[in-house]
């Protein structure tokens, strides 16, 4: 079973301490995906998985460094294999932290420069629209999506940053003057070199319903659902 009624299968991983898995699954289902939640001790992804989402939260209590323990969960071996085979993987907030710790995404996430937890809508600018995670956006488009994190200060040294910028891997930036955490070069989201793995600190799953303000998150998650659907069609 690779999809249910044409709905691509996009499992959401639940780690101990994840707390945005329900919102992520609900948003993905709203956007046309089938989004079962899978447990961190599972050793494989469901058959027919078209994309995987690592949700926000505080996996393993953020002990040692955010994401440092979760990356050794049994499910992460399956996620890593899936990613290395070209599978689509999206990490949101804590999911982003886990992906950097796992070496699937470049850079590292450090405590916010302010040392304060930030929880608010932030203006963002789409820097690259030709990714499976931003295809519903246009380059240069402004988005408003909430952040809520204490460790969102993305870091890369100058050499790495130059490399990522040259390769167009910085897909999402905080709007000028609106960087909430001190991230280097206002980086809010970054892809891997192959473009099939993406992590971002803002929470698109909290911005899919007009009742809650912005629906710009649906552009990110909708792009992923589109790409997941395409990858299934290509696999048939």
């Amino acid at each position: 079973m690779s999809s249910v009624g044409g709905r691509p299968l996009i499992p959401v991983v639940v780690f101990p301490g994840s707390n945005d898995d329900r919102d992520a699954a609900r948003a993905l289902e709203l956007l046309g995906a089938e989004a079962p939640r899978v447990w961190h001790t599972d050793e494989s992804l469901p058959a027919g998985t078209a994309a995987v989402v690592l949700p926000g939260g505080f996996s393993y209590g953020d002990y040692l460094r955010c994401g440092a323990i979760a990356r050794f969960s049994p499910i992460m071996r399956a996620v890593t294999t899936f990613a290395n085979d070209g599978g689509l993987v999206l990490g949101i907030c804590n999911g982003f932290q886990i992906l950097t710790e796992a070496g699937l995404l470049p850079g590292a996430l450090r405590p916010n420069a302010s040392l304060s937890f930030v929880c608010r809508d932030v203006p963002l600018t789409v820097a690259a629209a030709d990714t499976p995670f931003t295809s519903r956006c246009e380059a240069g488009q402004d988005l408003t999506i909430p952040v809520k994190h204490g460790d969102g200060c993305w870091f890369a040294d100058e050499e790495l940053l130059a490399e990522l910028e040259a390769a167009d891997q910085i897909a999402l930036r905080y709007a000028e003057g609106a960087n909430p955490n001190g991230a280097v070069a206002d980086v809010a989201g970054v892809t891997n070199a192959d473009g099939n793995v993406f992590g971002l600190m803002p929470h698109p799953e909290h911005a899919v319903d007009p009742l809650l303000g912005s629906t710009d998150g649906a552009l990110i998650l909708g792009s992923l659902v589109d790409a997941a659907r395409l990858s299934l069609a290509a696999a048939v």
Partner: protein
Amino acid sequence: MRATVLVRPKPGILDPQGQAVETSLRHLGFEVADTRVGRLVDVELQTDDRDEARALLERMCEQLLTNPLIESYEIEFAGA
């Protein structure tokens, strides 16, 4: 044998915790030029062979105890 791993933010990495501590120390009247905050991990190992212990600890640091992109480490042995 017992060892201590000292983990530090690498030079040049923004250390807001260190900055906050430095500010507080200044408020208390201490003249400090710089403060950095790291982490220490005490590890009790099965082996008594120092070379073997060091090799094990280095692997622990590379795999889990540090993020090599942003942190450096130093290994100290008890009684050394």
